[in-house]
């Protein structure tokens, strides 16, 4: 389905950015997009053709599977917390080494 294809494309795009960009913040952005792709994948699996959300009283018919939704909810919040902490380390690194370029950071001082 279209959403699965999009998820796979986003994962590929995200990892490509993670590998190829030199700036640390660009790498984090790529990881962000790849995480979005992974989450989309889980949500796309939970979807059934012609489904409506799994809430009581929304009528008959197929429902989307609520379990992956629950897993993904936690994942999004934890992703934000992890992102905040890694950006903190980027800030500290920038203060100490005055550069966000990975090649420069990897040189021995």
């Amino acid at each position, binding site marked *: 389905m279209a959403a699965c294809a999009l998820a796979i494309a986003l994962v590929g795009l995200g990892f*490509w950015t993670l590998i190829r960009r030199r700036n640390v913040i660009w790498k984090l952005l790529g990881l962000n997009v790849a995480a979005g792709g992974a989450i989309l994948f889980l949500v796309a699996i939970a979807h059934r053709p012609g489904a409506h959300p799994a*809430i009581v009283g929304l009528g008959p018919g*197929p429902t989307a599977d609520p*379990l992956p939704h629950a897993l993904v909810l936690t994942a*999004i919040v934890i992703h*934000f*917390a992890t992102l*905040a902490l890694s950006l903190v380390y980027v800030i500290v690194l920038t203060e100490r080494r005055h550069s966000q370029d990975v090649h420069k950071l990897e040189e021995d001082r």
Partner: protein
Amino acid sequence: MKWAAPMAVLGIVVLVAVGTWSLFPRPEVPPWEEATAVWGAENAVAAIVLGARLWDTLFEILVYAMAMVGVRLVLRPLWRTGSVPPLAETPLLRRAADVLLGPIVVFSVYLAASGHLGPGGGFPAGALLGSGLLLLALAKGADRLGGELHEPALERGEYGAIALLLAVGGGVLFFGWKGGSLCVGLNFLIAVEVAIGAWVVLHQFTRTRGEV
């Protein structure tokens, strides 16, 4: 070595695509109406997050709080001496804050209160409230707002919310509490926790810059 990057990405994409293939045909959706009836929530996701897998949610909140503690700890030596000048006092920003802050607070309370009856819940409510606080900080000046929001009280609020959450979780585990009001209480506590954590992160980040 030049081909290493494209090959790696191709490998990952192929892995995920092959994983997709193995999913068809799709299994049946498990019967979720019983879960909602048991836990007193009409939203199946809320029934899972706040009921069947409550302890997953509690530990996730703990991880979130740990990340915030880490942010505070690591950024403390990097605070700037002197005050942070506020963002240029454009009337647009102040007007936007004036107009938007009310709906943001009301909507976030609504999301938290009705999370078990429809889409929503504690997490988006807390995130929305955190964004609203940041909007207020942009309009008022991060230092002024930081001074007005008494920081130790916020910290006490955050850890108090976590303690209450753990206590309620224990109650669910040992005494078998369940029901709609339990879900509402849990949602509100989660919203408070997420909002205060987000505000702490944003405030700490602004304190290490020369301007907002």
